């Protein structure tokens, strides 16, 4: 899957400072980032480097302290809450580490939920939910509740919920963090398939095995982007390390 060059997300000098009891914590410091349509990037780094903070800002769950955030070429850093909610609903699909399915809703209703908030007609909702569940291989479990599913199945339902609305970008926060390796691989394969079908994906992970699924990796350290590595560069780097007998 190749990118078409159109910038879906652009961050320019974004900082995020948390204030607690007169203590300032700089979670992000001058982050510059551009994600093009059709890209599959992973954000990697050690714990506390700001990965999730960055993802929250990208998903409009949080706002930057300073800097510019352009989502689909539109400023998004100072949007009102209602507008943020609307954009999250229409432009962004979330996949969480802990699945975050609503326990009182069935599989079908969980997937349908964001479409309901969009005010989509019932017939179209039904079609989209069915298609999404087909895509993740969960169409046969529509009437089950999350508690009746395994972790891998729940994450597949969460993926279906994220893609049902056909968003501009999928944001995945440690999507394999709560899964064993087999289910983790299955979910990553699913994300790879979605990417190959044209989806733009931004994934946070600290597991290098899964980071390799992405075509590009952003390395964060102490709130700063310390390395922006493409797949080819990463392959060359890995080759050099192997030559040197270090890998």
């Amino acid at each position, binding site marked *: 899957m190749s990118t078409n060059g159109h910038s879906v997300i652009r961050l320019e000098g974004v900082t995020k400072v948390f204030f607690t009891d007169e203590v300032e914590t700089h979670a992000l410091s001058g982050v510059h980032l551009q994600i093009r349509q059709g890209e599959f990037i992973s954000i990697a780094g050690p714990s506390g480097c700001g990965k*999730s*903070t960055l*993802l*929250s800002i990208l*998903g409009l*769950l*949080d706002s930057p302290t300073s800097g510019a955030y352009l989502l689909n070429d539109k400023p998004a850093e100072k949007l009102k*809450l*209602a507008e943020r*909610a*609307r954009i*999250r*609903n*229409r432009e962004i699909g*979330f996949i*969480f*580490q*802990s699945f*975050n*399915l*609503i*326990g*009182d*809703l069935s599989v079908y209703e969980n997937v349908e*939920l*964001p479409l*309901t*908030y*969009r*005010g989509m007609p*019932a017939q179209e909702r039904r079609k989209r939910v069915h298609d999404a569940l087909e895509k993740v291989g969960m169409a046969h479990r529509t009437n089950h509740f999350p508690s009746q599913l395994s972790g891998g199945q729940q994450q597949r339902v969460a993926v279906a*919920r994220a893609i049902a609305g056909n968003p501009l970008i999928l944001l995945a926060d440690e999507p394999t963090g709560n899964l064993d390796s087999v289910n983790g691989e299955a979910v990553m394969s699913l994300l790879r398939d979605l990417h190959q079908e044209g989806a733009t994906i931004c994934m946070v992970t600290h597991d290098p095995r899964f980071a390799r699924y992405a075509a590009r990796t952003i390395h964060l350290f102490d709130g700063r982007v310390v390395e922006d590595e493409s797949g080819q560069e990463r392959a060359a780097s890995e080759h050099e390390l192997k030559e040197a007998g270090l890998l």
Partner: protein
Amino acid sequence: MPALVQDAKYALRTLGKSPGFTVLAVVTLALGIGFNTAVFSVVDAAVLRPLAYSRPGELVRIWDSNPGRGFDRFSASPPNFVDWRAQNTTLAGMAAFTGDDATLTAEGEPLRLRGYAVSPALFPVLGVSPLYGRAFDAEDENPGREPVVLLSWQFWQRRFGGDTGVVGRTISLDGKSRIIRGVMPRGFRYPSRDADIWTPLVLDAKALENRGAHWLGVVARRRPEVSPAAAQADLSAIAARLAAAYPEKNAGWGVVLVPLQEAIAGSARKPLLLLLGAVTFVLLIACVNVANLLFARGTSRRREIAIRGALGAGRVRLLRQMLTETLALALAGGAAGVALAVWGAETLVALAGDSLPRSAEVGIDVRVLLYTLAVSLATALAAGLWPALRATYPAGRDALRASAGSAGYGPRAGAARQAMLVAEIALTLVLLVGAALLLRSMAAVLRVEPGIRPQGVLTAQLQLPSSRYPEPPQIAAFYRELTASLASLPGVAAVGTTNFLPVTGRQYTLSVRFLDHPVPAGDEASITYRVVGGDFFAAAGVPLKRGRVFTPEDRPGSPLVMLVNETLARRYFPGEDPIGREIVIGDRAKAPGASSGSSATCSRRASRTLPWRSSTCRPSRCPGTKWRSSSGPRGIRCASLRPCARGSARSTRSCRSRRSRRSRKSSPVRSASAASRCFCSARSPASRFSSPRSASTASSRSWPGSACAKSASGSPWVRVAGTSSRSSSGRARGSRGRASSRDWRSRSRPRAS
């Protein structure tokens, strides 16, 4: 709409998965909404709901008024009524009425009926027509017309089984034949809820000559184009002309118009609204309780709300979802509350008894249900909004990462919960203070010395038909014989008679003057009085403070004497000895005057004839009879009265012993007025007597004292023979409140003699 349905479905499903929370919240709200609805149903019926008459807003009650003498609303005198009716230009119609109870005889057991003599115009004024037959003609109020009667629907059903052929038939009332002119519709019982019959009010020349006798109730209808103020001004102008034309009787008297609905609500309005306020506080406390529950529940749902927010639900959407759940709780609470309200309203009506106006209209109808719905919606908002606002406060990513159990609100939510706790305590304190004040008032009422000793006293009410007892000597002979017969019964300690029983609120008012302190016409003192006979004071347990009680020598032809109570003596004879002083009664006095008072007295008209007969007549024919048992009331049954009465005359009622709901209470006042009374008709005690409390209040507020007279000889002045105890002072004795708990009254009919 689909989103709303989805919210509702989800709310029901969510609540169903938390049965403990749901049941607790619904029960809490049901109690709050139920009590509120119950009280509202009573308030609505008694105060708010328009009267069931045509264009009820135009209807007014009209009263004579003399604020200077403490009579803000007083019955009208017949001449004043006639002048108002003739001279006004703002009223479409005006009618008068007065009580005219009668005894139905000649068909089975004699039956005492609550009757009213009414102007023929009453029915067109109220806009009511008979269900069968026709109403009175205008000519029916002229003397000498054919005697006719209208029946209430209830009496018609009860006595005639709904026979439509009853119109045109003749019944015997007080020994006189009256033709049944018609049957009124089911809901019509004006002016009281227990009205059985209506007869034409005939104002003869004698009635129209005395402007000082106030005994008519007046109701009228404003012309549609006339404002209440204009009607009031019109009538006030007439009253001013009458005051100028008849200064002796009308000086100081005005007229006051009150919307009929307000007049019917009367003094019940304030306490009812107060009660509604109290249960609203209860509802608020329920709301705070449920809000606290919702807070706790919101904490556990923090993560879910954060997920919904992340998926694109705006805050308004989330608020709607949360409030839908609260609304479901409130509606369920409202539905359960309605069931509770049905019971609550019945209980309130039973507790209030006669003091509750329009009690027959109390019920759960569409208006009440709409109110309940509105209260439920308001409750949902009151209980759910703040928790919903807190729950939907943007949570950010932390709530999405936290586990369900750890996603709390933080310090701000803790402060909110503390604020709610403070509010709950404050509301509860307000209620507690109100309840404490109410209890203090109740305790004060219980401490009131009613002026009588109710223990061991039985009462009965008799009515003598004028056809069989046309002359005073016959009446006097009957009661002489009756009291003697009762006194001879084993266990009877004393027997007395009176026109009105004490602390019932029923009494006559009398204008008196003191020649030592002349006042202009119209400024006479007003006192309440009763006529008593036999050994009344011993039977009622009224202690004599000074002087003497009546004796058999106080008979027609002997000097007039009266007893006054301490209140009157203190007020009109401060520092003086009232014994032997003279009081001028009415307008014909020429003799030196003395004073007046409140616990037992005699009317001027009564004094002209015999002790047991007054000009208003009816009470004298049906005085309450008291007798005191030396062995307690258990030793005497009302049935004992019947053979005595039968032995004295053939046409007295059979005596039925009945225990009223009120009599089960432990109030000594109640035990005096209701618990120990036997009635000679099928009427319940509650329907015959106003509440003791209102009687006590009226007496102490409006009238300076009271007096009690026995016999007369036509002289307009009487001499004070003795002073009885103050009727509303002193402390209750320890055992006073227990008298009413005795279960000596039977609901069953006594054995016929």
